[in-house]
């Protein structure tokens, strides 16, 4: 049995170096050459400044923008590091609400948000993805129903014809992969960028 001690130490160190250093570093180098944009985080720049990542949702509250999912992410309380404060779309601390199906807090929150959205647009039924928190708190997408629901508000705030805004939503609706995998969705940041571009014209 004693002769197993040498391989336990040496093989562990060698395999650790291979799988824990050589492999990730080599992959970083290769990926950086073949897919430089993705490897850096699919960042979007505007006028030389990073405005976000194509894959990471960001918070929108202004009426003139489409709003994304609710986000339950938090950040350390600046006043007391043992506590946390709500910080939606904190891309340095992902996470969900973790509220269960019989949670009163969840039921109250849902009711409040449904009422708010009904007041905003009484003509359509409230899409579920607009009143639920995403798993990561960073969901970049909403369903096409959730985007179309917001069209009247956005069009009014921007004084654009609803038809034009609806057309932008349609243009930014992504189908299922190969018509099969995943769900039909709209990337909120891409849509809002297109909206800004259309308004600037």
């Amino acid at each position, binding site marked *: 049995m004693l002769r197993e001690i040498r391989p336990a130490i040496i093989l562990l160190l060698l395999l650790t170096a291979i799988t824990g250093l050589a*492999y990730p570093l080599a992959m970083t180098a290769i990926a950086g050459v073949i897919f430089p944009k993705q490897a850096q985080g699919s960042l979007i720049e505007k006028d030389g400044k990073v405005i976000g990542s194509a894959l990471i949702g960001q918070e929108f509250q202004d009426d003139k923008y489409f709003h994304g999912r609710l986000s339950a992410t938090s950040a350390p309380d600046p006043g007391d590091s043992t506590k946390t404060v709500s910080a939606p779309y904190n891309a340095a601390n992902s996470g969900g609400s973790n509220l269960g199906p019989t949670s009163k807090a969840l039921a109250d929150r849902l009711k409040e948000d449904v009422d708010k959205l009904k007041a905003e647009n009484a003509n359509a039924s409230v899409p579920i993805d607009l009143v639920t928190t995403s798993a990561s708190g960073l969901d970049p997408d909403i369903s096409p129903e959730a985007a179309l629901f917001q069209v009247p508000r956005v069009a009014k705030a921007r004084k654009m014809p609803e038809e034009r805004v609806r057309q932008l939503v349609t243009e930014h609706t992504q189908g299922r992969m190969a018509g099969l995998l995943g769900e039909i969705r709209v990337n909120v940041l891409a849509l809002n960028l297109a909206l800004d571009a259309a308004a600037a014209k």
Partner: protein
Amino acid sequence: MTVIGWIQIFLYCAIVVALVKPLGWYMTRVFNGESTFLSPVLRPVEAGLYRIGGVDAKREQHWLTYTVAMLLFHVGGFLVIYGLMRLQALLPFNPQDQSAVAPDLSFNTAISFITNTNWQNYGGESTLSYLVQMLGLTHQNFLSAATGIALAVALIRGFSRSSMRTIGNFWVDVTRCTLYVLLPICMVYTLFLVWQGMPQTLGAYVDATTLEGAKQTIAVGPVASQVAIKMLGTNGGGFFNANAAHPFENPTALSNFVQMLSIFVIGAAMTNVFGRMVGDQRQGWAILGVMGVLFLAGVAITYWAEANGTSTLNALGLTGGNMEGKEVRFGIVASSLFAVVTTAASCGAVNAMHDSFTALGGMIPLINMQLGEIIVGGVGAGLYGMLLFVVLAIFVAGLMVGRTPEYVGKKIEAREVKMAMLAILVLPLMYLGWTAVAVVFPPAVASMANAGPHGFTEVLYAFTSATGNNGSAFGGLTGNTLFYNLTLASSMFVGRFFMIVPAMAIAGSLAAKKSIPPSAGTLPTTGGLFVGLVVGVILIIGGLTFFPALALGPIVEHLADNANNLF
């Protein structure tokens, strides 16, 4: 539930089944020491490792030596991770200046990774440096997976050999598994994941100014290389806190689909390795059949429950299923399927928050783990767990007809059955025992995020996941406390090693027995009768063990939900 949803589920199953034979063939060659298409490149590396490490590749080990070698290897792995976490502030590759991790959290995480659990009491992007993610976690993702596979192969040798004292060489099995199976697949897989949008960089987090003018710090890192082995090795520990729900850790529907495939592929192929090594591939397919029956039942229930939503959602007129804690790009079907896959295997990665699943939708992942993660299961661990149940089922069948039970040519006798029972019974002892302690210990109760039966389920889920070496969580529970760090670590340790040691004892005892040819009185172990028998034994043993606990948690919560009771 939709037609396109079910098509996705069946497409998934079809691809897994299609991969079983080719991968099983390749892995059998690897573990038999035969040459493969990678040998010209890897043989010299392999030989070099043995030379420096002082390993004689030709010298095989007794089961006890094999097990001791495995345990020594893990002591080393524990020290590496613990040391790196405690010292990360002083080490390179730490652009965010993460400070040293607390001793209890480091202890928990080190145990978590050497046991292939990857329970996340740490929040990846807010706690760990890139060096710890790579050298600490990525390396152990490889080695704990390779260990699981090696142990399963050793147990298979117990069945396939006749009158032999040895069951293989641990060092050779682990090295060959890492070099020939895990690393090559991961290299291709990493590039695929980066192509789909996963970051792979050593640069610091990016500060962005959003369209509305707010500052958003975006965590990045060497994500793809870690996620590849995290899924393939059924480890499941996320680079980010939100795990595979994070858009960087699972950017597209395609990356999600392939991640689910990679969770199952090695575990499913191990049944074929078993069949090939015992000389009858149908034996492997029968075991996969048992797994398939239990898997599809779980998928159907979870998908149905999530698509139906809850009373609260329905009362507000919100349709389309329970989207709380789910991502739009995955929706109901891919989130439900992922949850069942990750708990059937002992992966534990999540692409949706299980804590927010409906009562019954969240119960299936819990049951999957309580059955011992034998539905495909962890790489290797799933097969040896399943074989323990097979031993038991064969024993029960033997009792019914009054014959000495045999399986693939080996007589199953008192020693094997005792060891199998020991391994199977120690799991509920840990998760039921610690849950009972936690729910009467006020500081542990304070960690619950939800009130009522859901809070109980959070605790039960935590200890089940830890004992089963799964690592998924009802994430609302605040696990990073002294109590949970220590008790969960003990669950992970016992759940892993108290299963492995009896399994290896069985391997040694079987290898020493003579192989006997099947006779007219032998129960055929390749047909529907055998599949039904094993499924029955699993459900009866499992059901009797944990049904009372489920009744206090998800079942009563489901009734409360139907009655519109909130907590």
